[in-house]
C-alpha cells in the first residue's frame, strides 16, 4: 500500500514538474539541423550491412522533415541544401524507393521558397530512378511533368510524355497528352487536363493532394484574370481603380467579396489594380504568371 502511494506521489510530482518545465523558455537549439555526417551514398550502401532499407527510410523521413521545416520556416534566405543529398542517400540505399524519386522530385522542382527551385535536380533524381527501373513509365511521365510545369520546356515535356506512353503498362492518355502539349504547350487548359488525368488515375494520396492543389491554383489564376478585367473595366468607367472590393460590389460588378477556391479573400492593390491571393492562402505560391493566359 505504501509502495503504491509512493508511486502515485512520485508520478504526480513528475507530471507537475513536467508542467512547470513546459512554462519555461526553451533552451536555444543547437545549430545542428543542417548537418549531414555522411554524404557518400557509396560508403553508406556498404556500411549499412543488411540495414540498407531501414536506413533508406530514415533518410527519407529526414528529407520529408527537412523539406517541411524549411518550407514552413520564416527565415530569410532559407536553404534546402540537404534535400538532394538526403534523397540521393535514400534512393541509393533502396534503389526501388519509388516514392522517394517521385515525391522527392516535387520537393526539388517546386519554385523557391515553397521548394528548392531546382527542376534540374528533380530531373536528375528521376533519371536515376529510370536507370534503376528502365520500364517505370511513371518516372518518365514525371520528368515530362517537371519540364512542363517548372521548366516550361513544352517540346521536351512532350518528348518525355511520348516516351512514357510507349512503356509497358502506361495509360492510354499519355500519347494524347504529348500531342496536346506539343500543340498548345503551356496553355492553361492543357495544364488542367494534365492534372485532371493525374487526379483520375491517382493511386496514392499525395498525388491526389498535389493534383487537387494544382487544379485549385489554375482555378484561382482564371479567377484572378477575370477579377483584373473587372477592375480594369471599373477603372475605365470611374476614372480610377477601385480602392476596395466594396467599390466593385456597390457598382454592381461583383455580388460579394471575391474568395479563392480555398475561401480566402483575394487582395486588391488599389494603386495598380493588381489582384493577388491572400498571404495566408494555402494556394500560395501560384505557378509562375508566365503561364500563358487563357
Amino acid at each position, binding site marked *: 500500500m505504501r509502495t503504491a502511494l509512493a508511486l502515485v506521489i512520485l508520478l504526480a510530482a513528475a507530471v507537475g514538474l513536467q508542467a512547470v518545465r513546459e512554462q519555461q523558455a526553451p533552451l536555444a537549439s543547437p545549430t545542428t539541423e543542417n548537418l549531414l555526417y555522411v554524404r557518400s551514398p557509396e560508403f553508406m550502401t556498404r556500411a549499412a550491412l543488411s540495414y540498407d532499407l531501414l536506413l533508406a*527510410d530514415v533518410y527519407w523521413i529526414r528529407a520529408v522533415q527537412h523539406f517541411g521545416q524549411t518550407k514552413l520556416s520564416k527565415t530569410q534566405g532559407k536553404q534546402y541544401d540537404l534535400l538532394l543529398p538526403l534523397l540521393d542517400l535514400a534512393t541509393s540505399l533502396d534503389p526501388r524507393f519509388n516514392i522517394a524519386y517521385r515525391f522527392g522530385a516535387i520537393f526539388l522542382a517546386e519554385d523557391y521558397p515553397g521548394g528548392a527551385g531546382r527542376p534540374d535536380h528533380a530531373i536528375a533524381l528521376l533519371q536515376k530512378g529510370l536507370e534503376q527501373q528502365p520500364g517505370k513509365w511513371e518516372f518518365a511521365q514525371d520528368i515530362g511533368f517537371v519540364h512542363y510545369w517548372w521548366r516550361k520546356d513544352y517540346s521536351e515535356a512532350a518528348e518525355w510524355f511520348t516516351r512514357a506512353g510507349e512503356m509497358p503498362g502506361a495509360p492510354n492518355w499519355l500519347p494524347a497528352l504529348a500531342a496536346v502539349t506539343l500543340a498548345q504547350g503551356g496553355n492553361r487548359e492543357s495544364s488542367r487536363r494534365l492534372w485532371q488525368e493525374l487526379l483520375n488515375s491517382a493511386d496514392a494520396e499525395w498525388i491526389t493532394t498535389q493534383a487537387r492543389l494544382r487544379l485549385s491554383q489554375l482555378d484561382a489564376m482564371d479567377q484572378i484574370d477575370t477579377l483584373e478585367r473587372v477592375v480594369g473595366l471599373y477603372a475605365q468607367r470611374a476614372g480610377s481603380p477601385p480602392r476596395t472590393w466594396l467599390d466593385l460590389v456597390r457598382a454592381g460588378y461583383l455580388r460579394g467579396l471575391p474568395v479563392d477556391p480555398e475561401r480566402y479573400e483575394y487582395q486588391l492593390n488599389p494603386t495598380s489594380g493588381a489582384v493577388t491571393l491572400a498571404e495566408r492562402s494555402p494556394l500560395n505560391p501560384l505557378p509562375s504568371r508566365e503561364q500563358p493566359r487563357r
Partner: protein
Amino acid sequence: MRAVGHIAVNVFKESVRDKVLYSIVAFAVMLIAVSYLLGQLTAGQDLKIIKDLGLASIATFGLLIAVFIGIGLVWKEVERRSIYGLLTKPIRRWEFILGKYAGLMLTLLVNVSVMTAAFYAVLAYQGWGVDALARQAWPAPPMDPALLAAIALIFVELMLVTAIALFFSTFSSPFLSAVLTLGLWVIGHFNADLRNFENVLESRAAAWLARGLYYVLPNFDAFDIKAQVVHGQHVAASYIGLSMLYGAVYMALVLTGAVAIFARRDFK
C-alpha cells in the same frame, strides 16, 4: 540422441527463466508496434516503413539473442564448474555441444515466432479498411506470405550466427567470443566486395587471397532478401532453397569445428 534432447530442453527452460530475454523480445514487439506510428511521419510510405522496421527488428533482436546467449552457453558451464558434473554423466561431448545449440535454436524459434506474430498483427491493422485504389499502389499486400520467406532466411542467418558464437565460446572468453562473432558477421556482409577486390588490387597474390576469403568466409548477404520481398519482387524458390542449404552446410562445418575443439579441451 536423447541426451541432446534433454540438454536442449534444459537450455530452453533456462532461457525462459532469463528475464533479460523477455525484455529483449518485449522491446522488439514494442518497436514493431511503434513502426505504425513512425510510418505516419512520412509521405505515403507507411506500409514500406512498417515492413522494413519489422524485418530489421526481427533480425537485430534475433542477432542480439543469438550472440549474447550463444557466447555464454559453454562458458557458463565452465565458469560455474557444472561442466565437471555433466561430463561424468553418460553424455558425450558432441551431444553436449549439439544439445546446447538445439536448445538455443528452440529459444530463438519461439522468440522469432512471437516477433513475427506481432509484426503480422501490425500489418493486419495497417491493411484494415484501406480502399481498393490505395491497395493498388502497394507493390505487395500487407499480409504478404513472401515476408515469411524473408523471416525464414533471417532465422537461418541467426542459426549460423549462433553456431559461430558457440564455436568461439568453446575456447575463448565471452567478451572475445562476442567481438569475434560480431566481427565475422560484419565481414560476412562485406563478402561480395571481396569477390571484386581483384578489380582494384594490383597484386595478383592479394587478389587471390581476397577471392579465397570470399569462398571461405560465411556470406551473410545470401540470407538477405528483405528488399526484394518488401518491393514485391519475386524471389525464386531455388534461390531460397540454395541459401538454406548453404547455411545448413556452413552450420554443420562450424559445429563440427566446435565439437572438435571441445572434445580436446582439458577440464582438469
